[in-house]
């Protein structure tokens, strides 16, 4: 009987496995690869000249500049926050830890459009702090600060979420060892903690960056779509598309797509690297 069963199983496997693989591939091709290819096909529809032409537009320049600026401002803040939050949650027991963990996840749960709207309700002309800001001539909504704030809100879980499980699984014994050897907090962080979390941190930064550059919903609500001033790349793409400038829209989109592809490649490298190091420690434990 066992032999019969085994045979049946392998016969099943003979056609089920390729079928499943084919289905998965077909799905991937249909929903991921085709749109991806479409972006580039559309971008180059009128030749390389028209493609390059898109990027000579000063509005395009300013959109790219603004997107880079937002990413550059978002990442350091999230880096600081992410490491601090992960450190606090992984290393210390305190009241309200659960609440903090839930709050970190909040941006994942809230629709980005709602997130943007919250900032409008807070800092907008008719918002809670609007009159106060107006008196002091500080503009947040429909200006760069609003875009940065909205992006910060949307991206802040990425680094913390990446680090918390990593730091929890590594434990604090190495840090305590460093402490007992006379290292101060700063030395412990730079010489022991950081080297151990560097791959996770890098991965978190990559994800955070990708999201910061690609965020549409939250930014769309607070930006005001002022060309040359508050238009980020995703918003610029929408405007070009709405103006029937398909080549321009897709050319711009191809840049963001390239960013996504680079992110994926770096992510795989980082995962591979950290797995390799992790495997080493695992083997070490078994010995």
């Amino acid at each position: 009987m066992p032999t019969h069963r085994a045979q049946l199983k392998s016969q099943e496997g003979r056609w089920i496995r390729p079928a499943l693989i084919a289905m998965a591939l077909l799905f991937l091709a249909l929903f991921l690869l085709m749109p991806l290819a479409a972006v580039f096909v559309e971008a180059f529809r009128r030749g390389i000249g028209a493609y390059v032409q898109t990027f000579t537009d000063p509005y395009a320049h300013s959109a790219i500049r603004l997107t880079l600026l937002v990413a550059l401002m978002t990442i350091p803040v999230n880096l600081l926050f992410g490491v601090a939050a992960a450190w606090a949650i992984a290393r210390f027991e305190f009241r309200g830890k659960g609440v903090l963990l839930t709050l970190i996840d909040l941006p994942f749960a809230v629709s980005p459009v709602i997130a943007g709207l919250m900032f409008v309700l807070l800092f907008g002309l008719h918002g809670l702090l609007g009159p106060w800001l107006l008196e002091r001539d500080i503009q947040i909504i429909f200006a760069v600060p609003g875009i940065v704030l909205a992006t910060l809100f949307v991206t802040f879980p990425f680094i913390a979420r990446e680090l918390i499980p990593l730091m929890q699984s590594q434990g604090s014994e190495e840090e305590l060892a460093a402490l007992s050897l006379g290292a101060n907090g700063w030395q412990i962080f730079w010489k022991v903690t950081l080297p151990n979390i560097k791959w996770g941190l890098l991965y978190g930064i990559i994800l955070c960056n990708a999201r910061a550059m690609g965020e549409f919903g939250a930014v769309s609500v607070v930006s005001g779509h002022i060309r040359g001033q508050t238009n980020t790349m995703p918003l610029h793409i929408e405007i070009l598309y709405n103006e029937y400038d398909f080549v321009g829209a897709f050319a711009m989109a191809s840049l963001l797509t390239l960013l996504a592809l680079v992110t994926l490649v770096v992510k795989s490298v980082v995962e591979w690297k950290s797995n390799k190091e992790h495997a080493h420690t695992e083997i070490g434990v078994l010995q």
Partner: protein
Amino acid sequence: MSIQVNNISKTFGSFAALKNVSLTVNDGELVALLGPSGCGKTTLLRIIAGLEFPDPASGPVLFHTDDVSRQDARRRRVGFVFQHYSLFRHMNIFDNVAFGLRVRPRNVRPNKAEIKHRVESLLNLVQLERHAALYPWQLSGGQRQRVALARALAVEPKILLLDEPFGALDAKVRKELRHWLRRLHDEMAITSVFVTHDQEEALELADRVAVLNTGRIEQVGTPEEVYDHPANPFVFNFLGNVNIFHCRDKEARQQVGLAQAAAATTGEKVAAAYVRPHDIEISRAADSETIPARVVHIAAAGPVAKIQLARLDTREMVHAEITRQKYRQLNLNTGESVYIKLQNPRYFSEDYVI
């Protein structure tokens, strides 16, 4: 440097890990904290190191005559060897050992050549001089333990604390490292405390042993003292195998042939006799103090012959250990009836719960 802890208590939430523990470790001594898991021995060690802080009502921790209660691990300058070594996984062996020297403030930091010299001599000491460039994951458990020790010694601590130093090693490596650690301790004359749950390790290695149970120190003494004169049944039980002979009524006392049991039994409290397996004497001839028993099982491989017997009167099991020579003389076989006699019995009242 001597260590003194006074009235230390430590609670984690509602769990009392230590209850009013006091202990003195003399200068240059090697003391073992021995006890079952969860008895608080590691907590006590970490409190001495400053990695954990006792409850506010606790007494001070003194190093020599200095009160270090308020200092953290960084300021106490003790060498601490962690149970799982806790080597820095991204540093090679050399950098691991050099860490404590490199993090010193600039004005007291040795220069590069001095650090190199010091690390090399330490690696020499732990016999790992050829492994300096390797990473922790490339070493065996015993080698890693020695790196952890070298790393702790690099900062020239006056006190060395070791948390289950041989816990994760296999039996043979364990024994080797044990002798090696003892030699090292004697050469460096550094006050040391180590935690273990292995009574053999504690008795063999330590100058004095502190036996802990449920957050209290049950007894402190030299290995001979705690082994030969255990303060209570727990210590007796924890330090080795034991046969317990209940003497609840007069008849039972007569049966076990214990004239002293009657004397040890006062008032309502009845005593039980505790006897080590090697204090069970087996003979072919009966006398007034022997108990008849049947041989149930014999394990004669190893340095002593382990004989399992069943008392003919109560059917209770008795474990005996006799020399191989004696075993050959007696020519014992399974199923035979013999007589046992209790040597060096210790009496503890029966209401004492182990």
